[in-house]
């Protein structure tokens, strides 16, 4: 019973981590412009992240190391510094985008421009991290994230041709806007396979003191949680395809177009649900990314860390998330377009993948860390696939950004 509760909490938490401004914006853009054709990218991204999250959890539960600890210890500081810098940069941009997402939701709700909301949002997130515990953040905020299920409900109520949805789940070549099509595919993959997601997950496993008895729980949470998150993304894509596409909105280049998505289905409440979903999903992600930034620095340099400690007991750790949050709010407060930043940071995430995923291949096959729980053939095949995909994405994402970006 306790395990069942833990699994359901974990699943809810992973949904909170999975669905954020990146997955919502990329799925909505893809749906509006290409109908169901890019569903395969969401499905592929979800399968990849299931494997990586399962491995991150297994590594933490068996070796009692987080992924960041493991990379530094196994490869040495001179190698660790590259993923460290890359993830710090990517996290910073993603955090800025998430703050932008909440600020846009606040603008939609109040009519006051999003720029004014950036600093208050950062302050609220900071206050929760400063005073809250890991349990509060993990469980409380992600419970609220269940509101995003409204996209799945909406997608079903729209009665899509399920046969066409299934066809979209298989990759196919675009009939128009080729560069944009591939850029969207890259952004969707970047939004699904986020390094912060699996690194945060391994830190969480250490915070919750997982050991080998959690391996089954870990597998269930990784599989169910990420599939659940992926399903909601597909829901967003279907709704965008059927509502935005049908209303002639093919180019989502402004957040103000997005709330239209749910109005034909739920009327005024559709607007409320959209704003709530955007605000909660982005706020939850902002908390996780800010915390992950502090985890990464503290773990990389061996400082004391833990969200349950009082800030005065880990001043270095607390200062990192404090500075990160407020600095990340600055570009939004200065008026940088959150939607553009989101799409850009998702493509950059995809480009950074090789640096964080290559170490998995070594860490998860190293007897000294995972012993008998090392990767099997299937998991290793999955990692090699993600690495290959990561290299392709790293090479193509910058040119595609130039030719297919918005």
């Amino acid at each position, binding site marked *: 019973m306790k395990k069942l509760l833990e699994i359901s909490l974990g699943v809810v938490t992973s949904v909170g981590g999975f669905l954020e401004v990146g997955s919502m914006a990329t799925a909505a853009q893809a749906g509006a412009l290409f109908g169901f054709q890019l569903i395969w990218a969401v499905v592929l991204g979800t399968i990849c992240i299931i494997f990586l999250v399962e491995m991150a959890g297994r590594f933490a539960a068996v*070796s009692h190391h987080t992924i960041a600890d493991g990379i530094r*210890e196994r490869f040495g500081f001179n190698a660790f510094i590259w993923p460290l810098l890359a993830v710090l940069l990517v996290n910073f941009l993603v955090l800025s985008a998430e703050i932008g997402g909440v600020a846009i939701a606040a603008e939609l709700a109040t009519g006051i421009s999003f720029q004014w909301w950036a600093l208050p949002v950062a302050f609220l997130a900071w206050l929760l991290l*400063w005073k809250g515990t890991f349990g509060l953040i993990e469980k409380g905020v992600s419970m609220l994230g269940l509101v995003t299920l409204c996209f799945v409900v909406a997608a079903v109520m729209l009665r899509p041709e399920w046969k066409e949805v299934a066809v979209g789940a298989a990759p196919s070549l675009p009939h128009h806007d080729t560069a944009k099509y591939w850029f969207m595919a890259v952004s969707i993959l970047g939004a699904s396979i986020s390094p912060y997601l699996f690194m945060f997950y391994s830190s969480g496993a250490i915070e919750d003191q997982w050991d080998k008895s959690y391996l089954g729980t870990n597998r269930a949470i990784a599989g169910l949680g990420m599939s659940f998150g992926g399903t909601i993304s597909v829901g967003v894509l279907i709704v965008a395809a059927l509502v935005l596409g049908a209303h002639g909105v093919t180019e989502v280049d402004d957040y103000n177009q997005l709330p239209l998505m749910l109005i034909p289905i739920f009327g005024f409440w559709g607007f409320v649900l959209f704003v709530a979903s955007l605000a909660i999903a982005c706020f939850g992600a902002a908390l996780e990314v800010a915390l992950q930034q502090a985890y990464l620095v503290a773990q990389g*340099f*061996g*400082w*004391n860390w833990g969200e349950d400690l009082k*800030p*005065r007991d880990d*001043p270095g750790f607390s200062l990192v998330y404090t500075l990160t949050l407020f600095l990340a709010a600055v570009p939004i407060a200065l008026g940088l377009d959150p939607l553009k930043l989101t799409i850009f940071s998702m493509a950059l995430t995809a480009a950074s993948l090789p640096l964080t995923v290559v170490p998995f291949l070594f860490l998860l096959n190293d007897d000294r860390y995972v012993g008998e729980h090392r990767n099997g053939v299937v998991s290793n095949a999955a990692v090699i696939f993600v690495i290959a995909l990561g290299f392709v994405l790293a090479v193509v994402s910058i040119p595609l950004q130039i030719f297919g970006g918005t």
Partner: protein
Amino acid sequence: MQLLRDMLDKQVVDREQVKIGKVDSIVAELKPGKPPRVSAVELGSIALARRLGSTPAGWTAKLAARLSGKQQARPHRIAWNKVRDIGVDIEFDIDVRRTRIFAWQDWLREHVVGRIPGA
């Protein structure tokens, strides 16, 4: 045990299990006619910067000397004979509060973090 593989970059904790840093470098003693002997481990930004090359090492040492005085411009050393346990972390029989390792965190606590309400 292989020094570089199994020691370098491992988490260091004190006798109260407080995380105090990573093994940023290893100090070995060379005496004529005898095999090299590990005498200490080093922690801190200066030791770390030395591994990246002489330019970062020079900058970090200068910065440390400016921020906290000449005596801080050396890495923190923990004698190898204080080692108590090598497992997931390396435990040394010391009390971090009686070293200078956390001087910067103490400074932060006193001057920045402690001044924010609710810390």
